[in-house]
C-alpha cells in the first residue's frame, strides 16, 4: 500500500495540521521511508495472536463519581491565549 501525496494531505487535514504543497512533498518522502520500515510487520504470521494493548494485564480501575477538584478558573485562564469575562475566546462558529 504505497502512500500517495493525497494520503499525506488527507492525513494532515485529519490531524489539523496546515501543510503547504512543499511541506506535503517533504512529508511524503519521509513518511514513505518510515512506512517502508513498518512494512516489515506484514511478513509476520500473527494468526491466533491476541492483540496486546497494555503491558500489565489489569482491568481499568474505577473511582467513585464525586467532586475531587476545586474550581481554579482564574489560575487556569491566566495561561490561556485569549479569554474574556471568564470565557475562552475562539473564532465565531455559529452564524
Amino acid at each position, binding site marked *: 500500500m504505497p502512500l500517495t501525496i493525497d494520503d499525506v494531505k488527507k492525513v494532515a487535514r*485529519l*490531524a489539523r495540521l*496546515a501543510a503547504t504543497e512543499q511541506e506535503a512533498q517533504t512529508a511524503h518522502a*519521509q513518511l514513505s521511508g518510515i512506512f517502508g520500515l513498518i512494512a516489515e510487520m506484514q511478513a509476520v504470521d500473527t494468526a491466533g495472536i491476541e492483540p496486546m494493548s497494555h503491558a500489565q494485564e489489569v482491568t481499568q480501575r474505577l473511582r467513585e463519581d464525586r467532586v475531587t477538584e476545586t474550581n481554579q478558573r482564574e489560575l487556569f485562564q491566566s495561561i490561556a491565549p485569549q479569554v474574556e469575562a471568564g470565557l*475562552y475566546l475562539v473564532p465565531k462558529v455559529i452564524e
Partner: protein
Amino acid sequence: MINASLKQLSAQLAGKKISSVELTQLYLDRIAALNPGLNAYITLNPDMSLAQARAADERIAQGRAQALTGIPVAQKDIFCAKGWRTTCGSKMLANFISPYDAHVIEQFNRAGAVNLGKTNMDEFAMGSSNETSYFGVVKNPWNRNAVPGGSSGGSAAAVAARLCAAATGTDTGGSIRQPAALCGISGLKPTYGVCSRYGMIAFASSLDQAGLMARSAEDLALLLNTMAGFDERDSTSLQREKEDYARDLSKPLNGLRIGLPKEFFAEGLSSDVAQAVEAAIAEYRKLGARVMDISLPNSRLSIPVYYVLAPAEASSNLSRFDGVRYGYRAPDYADLTDMYEKSRAQGFGEEVKRRIMIGTYVLSHGYYDAYYLKAQKIRRLIAQDFAAAFTQCDVIMGPTSPTTAFNLGEKGDDPVQMYLSDIYTIAVNLAGLPGMSISCGFGTNNMPVGLQIIGNYFAEARMLNAAHQYQLATDWHQKMPAEVNGK
C-alpha cells in the same frame, strides 16, 4: 562535593557540614558557568530552588529529614511543576506555566528535595538525539560535537557534567537508557506502572514510564524509593506494597543467571561497543554470575511495531493542543479550523508533526487492522519472547545502543536512521519491563559505552543489585568529562 554519592550528601546535610542552600547554590553556580555551552537546562528559577533549599534546611534542623531532603534534583521538562514553566521542549508550550504538580514532582517535594531546574529534551520526548528541542540542541559533555542522546538528553548531560546531584527522565522507547549510555551515567526505567504518569506530559501512554538518571546504581535505588508509588489519578498506576529498592544492593552475585540475546550482538553493533560490553560480561563472570545465550527472535520487529503504536497513541494524546485553553495560538487565522491548523502547524516541530501524521494514518479508516492491530499482535510476540527468556535467566544484558554518541546533525534528514538507533531499547517498553543502562567503558572515539540490564517485571531491586556490585568492582561510573572536572 560534586562527586559525592547521594548517601554521602545526605549525611553531610544531616551533619551540618553543608547546608542545602550552599549545595543548591554550588550547583546553580556550576550551571551558570557550564550550561551556556551545554544547553542542558531550559528553565532555571534560582529563587524557587533556593526557597525549597531553605525549607529543607529548616526541616533538617528540626530533625525531620528524609533521604533526599535538601538534595538538588533536576527535573525533565516533561513533568509539570506548579509555578514553573513546563515546555516539553516545544514551542507549543513555550509560555506554559504549570498550574499543578505532577505526581513525581509531589513525591520529590514531599521528600524535601530541591527542584534545581527543568532540563532540555526532544520535543514531546520524540527523538534520540535531543536535536528536536525547540530550545536548541544539548551538547554531550564528553564531546561538544556529539549528541547527548534523547529524549532525556538534558538530564543526561546535566548529570554527566555534575550540574545536578541527580535528574529525572522518562522512557517511552529508550529515552532514559540511551542518553544515559551516551553520556556515561546510570539510568533506570522502572516497570510500567511503578511511577505515576499524572502530570507527565503524555507521548505514548501505554509505553511512557518515568525514571531516573544518576551517577550510580546506589543513587538510583535511593531516588526510586522516593519517586515510586501508587497514585489514583493515573489509571495505570499499580497498587503495590511499598518496597525498598536498595534492599538487595549488597548481595553477592553468586549464581546470578545472565542471558545474552544473540540478536543484540548481531550485525549493526559497532565493534568498540561490543568489546566494552563483552568486557563487562567477563567482569560479571568474575563476580560469580553464570552467563548463557538466549534468543529474543522477534526483537528486530520492535522498531516497526513501535513506530505504529507510539505515533498512534501520540496522535491521540497531542490532539489536546488546539490553541484554545493553553499553549500556542497562531497570530492570524480565518476561522476555527484555520486556527487549529495554523496553531498546530506553527506550534509543533517537524518530528512531532511527522509522528502525528503517521499515527493519524495508521488509525484511519481502512488501515486500522493492517497497522495498529497487527502491531499490537506482534507486541504480544515480543513480550512472549521475554517471558520465555526469563524462565532461563534472571537478568538480560547487552548493549544499550549500537554505537557511542554520534555527531550533531549526523543522522540529519533521515528519520529512519535515527529510529534504528533505538533497536535494543524499544522492545523493553513494548513488554513493559524495567531496563537500566550503566557505563561500562569507552569506544574508539573515547565516548562512553552503556551496558543495558533488563529485568523481569518488578525486578528493579535485583537489577540495581547487579549494577551496584559491578560498580563496586569497576570505576567506569566515576569517570567524568575532562572539561567539567574540578570546575
